[in-house]
């Protein structure tokens, strides 16, 4: 009776180890971190008004995340991770470009107001 118990416990242990090993043996893991990074990069880009200034690049990043999702479903984790990394840098670039565009607009606006002031001053001075 005792013997059978010990035997089944051993079998369970072996099975368990085998499962763990099998999990490790599959090609990589689900790229959770890469996905989180890509999504947060897209959120940041949206907050930086990339939807207005860089809609094409932002969409590309979004599409890459969607494609990566499908690759994850197909257990192609390596490819998925690479796509997610690309989506991340695409979104970051979209955000950076949007911020530059806004800075450029601000610079132009201030230049315009300087011109106006200067004209007013010139007109006022005899």
């Amino acid at each position, binding site marked *: 009776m005792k013997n059978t118990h010990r035997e089944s416990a051993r079998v369970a242990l072996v099975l368990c180890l085998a499962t763990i090993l099998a999990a490790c043996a599959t090609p990589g893991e689900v790229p959770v971190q890469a996905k989180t990074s890509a999504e947060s990069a897209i959120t940041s880009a949206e907050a930086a008004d990339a939807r207005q200034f860089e809609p094409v690049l932002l969409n590309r990043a979004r599409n890459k995340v969607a494609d990566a999702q499908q690759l994850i479903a197909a257990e192609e984790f390596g490819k998925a991770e690479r796509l997610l990394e690309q989506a991340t840098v695409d979104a970051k*670039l979209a955000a*950076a470009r949007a911020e*530059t565009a806004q800075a450029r607009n601000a610079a132009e606006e201030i230049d315009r107001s300087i011109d106006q002031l200067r004209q007013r001053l010139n007109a006022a001075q005899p």
Partner: protein
Amino acid sequence: MIRRLLISCSTIVLGALLAACAGTPPQNASIEAARAAYQAIADDPYVARSGASQLRQSEQALKRAESLLKQDAETEKVEHSAYLANRYAEIAAERGHRARLQEQIATAEKRREQLSLQAESLKAERARSEARQAQTEAQRARAEAERLKSEMEALQATQTPRGMVLTLGDVLFDLDKADLKSAGLRTVERLAQFMEEYPERRVRIEGYTDSTGPDDYNLGLSERRAQAVRDALMQEGIDSSRVEVKGFGEQYPVASNDSASGRQQNRRVEIVISDEEGTINTR
């Protein structure tokens, strides 16, 4: 002999070929592009200031791409690292652009502040000078009014709803005649001086009589007396366009015609002085 030579020859050629192959580092267009993008901004001070971590990420990805290529890794992995290297270089470049723009904005804001301060002080200066001008103007107008008042007092003019009115009494004319006595002429001289000083002012000379005698005669006499005053003014050099004449006969008495003194008061010439625009209120 020849065979040995051929063998050694081909060995040399093969060796050279192998050496050539081994010497050339593996090439990849994406890596080249990424390296160019990285090198273009590696020494940009604005990128160094605000895109340092992205520049570093670009460099790391570039190194990874190069080593993957050397290790003969899958093309996809090499391209991927090159892609990341290129993107990070682009992000760093954008951050550099933005830093440059922000610096320009800061400078421009200072300039704008200076200009608006200048505009403010100019505005204030103009307001001050306008106030000064208004004050001088007001002072001048007050002085003018004072002077006018004293001149009017000298002329013994009185303020009426029709304006300033100067009355030449009956005693300044010969009885039933339109000739001014010398005292009347002196008054007219003073009026002429006044009109020369205030060229914008005009006068209307109105003749009145008492109710004694026929209306036609009285009307005629009042007109003649008024005209006599106008003639005297013109003799003093006042332009006829500044003088209107009107005879009212026995209309508008100022006193009762029942007494002698009342009738004397009614026999008069009134000189109505216009306002500054030359307007005279008619009866």
